[in-house]
């Protein structure tokens, strides 16, 4: 056996307890999702026959379509909002030195550290005051604002890697700053903006406390709240539907995230120490 093969066996063996623990909930989720209704409560591992129908039934029973639409709406709009204000801010932070820059950076850091839960009562009053309670637009604003710190950090750390010479060259060629920005800078920054947008989207997609507090009627529920409402405070829980819904709500986002997480780390690592 080659040394590398031996090493591989050893490492996989060392990692296996953790891997089992990580994969266990995914297995539970998937297996329960394909169990027929009459087998769900029996503690067997495999269903006698996979009930793929569960996914179709779940859609109607759990009001999935509506919640899915709300989640897409909130995640897209809050991402657009966060990026619309963060791109200019990140551009300024990476391109200019100005008085108050340090203050702005500390301010962002504090907002990043502050989880919405600590402010939840104040946020609730704010939303009531604005007359937006039970309106998905309220959480668009809250998510957008809480994402600003993260998006500015990420974008700034990537923007700093784009050489300033390129824009200056465009200025010298007679392009206005606006034109230089659109023609030279933005195309180069596009990958960074895409990655940041996806993470901002996933943050909003997964958020729980704010949605739980601000959304009171089922029509406005986002996916986490909708699925939570199928479980919390109920005597009978249709677990096969809940797990099917969880599966559909989770897996696409998980795949995108797993694929992109190394960009997140690079951005955070640069942003955290700058």
């Amino acid at each position, binding site marked *: 056996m080659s040394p590398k*093969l031996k*090493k*591989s066996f050893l*490492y*996989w063996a060392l*990692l296996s307890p*953790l*891997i089992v623990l*990580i994969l*266990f*909930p*995914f297995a*539970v*989720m998937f297996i329960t999702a394909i169990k027929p209704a009459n087998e769900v*409560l029996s503690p067997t591992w495999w269903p006698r026959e996979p009930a793929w129908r569960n996914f179709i039934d779940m859609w109607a029973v759990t009001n999935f379509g509506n919640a899915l639409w709300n989640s897409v709406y909130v995640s897209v709009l809050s991402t657009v909002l966060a990026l619309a*204000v963060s791109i*200019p*801010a990140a551009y300024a932070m990476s391109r*200019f030195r*100005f008085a108050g820059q340090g203050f*702005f950076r500390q*301010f962002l850091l*504090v*907002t990043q*550290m*502050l*989880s919405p*839960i*600590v*402010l*939840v*009562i*104040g*946020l609730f*009053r*704010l939303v*009531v005051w604005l007359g937006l309670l039970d309106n998905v637009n309220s959480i668009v604003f809250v998510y*957008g*604002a*809480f994402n*600003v710190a993260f998006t500015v950090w990420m974008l700034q750390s990537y923007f700093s890697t784009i050489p300033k010479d390129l824009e200056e060259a465009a200025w010298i060629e007679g392009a206005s700053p*606006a034109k230089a920005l659109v023609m030279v800078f933005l195309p180069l920054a596009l990958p960074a903006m895409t990655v940041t947008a996806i993470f901002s989207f996933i943050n909003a997609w*997964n958020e*729980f*406390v704010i949605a739980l507090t601000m959304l009171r009627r089922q029509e406005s529920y986002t996916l*986490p709240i909708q699925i*939570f409402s199928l*479980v*919390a405070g109920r005597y009978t829980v249709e*677990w096969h539907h809940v797990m099917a819904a*969880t599966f559909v*709500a*989770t897996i696409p986002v*998980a795949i*995108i*995230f*797993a694929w992109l997480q190394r960009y997140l*780390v690079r951005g955070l*690592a640069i942003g955290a*120490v700058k």
Partner: protein
Amino acid sequence: MIRSPLTNPYLLILPGFLLAAFIILWPLYQLGTISLNDVNRFGQLRGFNGVENYVAVFTDPDFLGALWRTFIWTGAIVIGTLVVSVPVAMILNEDFYGRAIARVIIMLPWAVSLTMTAIVWRWALNGESGMLNSGLHGLGLIDQNIQWLARASTAFPVQIMIGILVTVPFTTTIFLGGLSSIPDDLYEAAKLEGASRWQTFREITLPLMKPFLNISIVLNMIYVFNSFPIIWATTQGGPANSTDILVTYLYKLGFRFGKLGEASALSVMMFVLLLAFTVLYVSLAMRRERT
């Protein structure tokens, strides 16, 4: 320099600053005001009452229980995560067959919303039909079903375990970033000098990883301290508030019991605590930048 709104940094940061400041400072101001007033459950202020709300929070036995549990919760998850993540990161930093797959699996919990993870665990931990019990049965580890979430003595450790599991991916990635920044020739030099593996780890890896360890500890302290969905979606702090930590207790105070004054006072105190953590983080990050 050509004059244009695009070259004025203040104009460029203004929208972001205003949005974040509005959504954060206005609620903060509200919390401060409510916490110093007598307030009814509908949020109407009925006059200044000094620090009475703060006193009420501190004399509430449920608060003291939740405070103590928050210490255990935060400490156990942060330390547990550290103990798991250091070896995992060191393994994932080595070259072996299937490393890419191993990395993706280890990162997986990060990608799933905590709410969903907690709901799946709640089902897996179900006393009669849960797959954890049937799995342990199958392995011959237990012969009676355990009602995992019915008592704090089993529920809270399981919640901590879930907490560690979802914190490992972030921490491991930070450590991987740190490990890849250590130059290989240091290890080669140590090998030539005849250092043992343990010596190499203690004398080279650990000291060079220290800034990354520090930053991950402080960041995890903040995240775990704020973590709400795991406990809320598994037990809602129950049975009888026995698995409450500060954030779940705060939510109950405000939205279940209607004690807005006390809830606001608690929020303000938690804000101050988080601010202290943040200052700690900044000083650590700055020290790292200087060295």
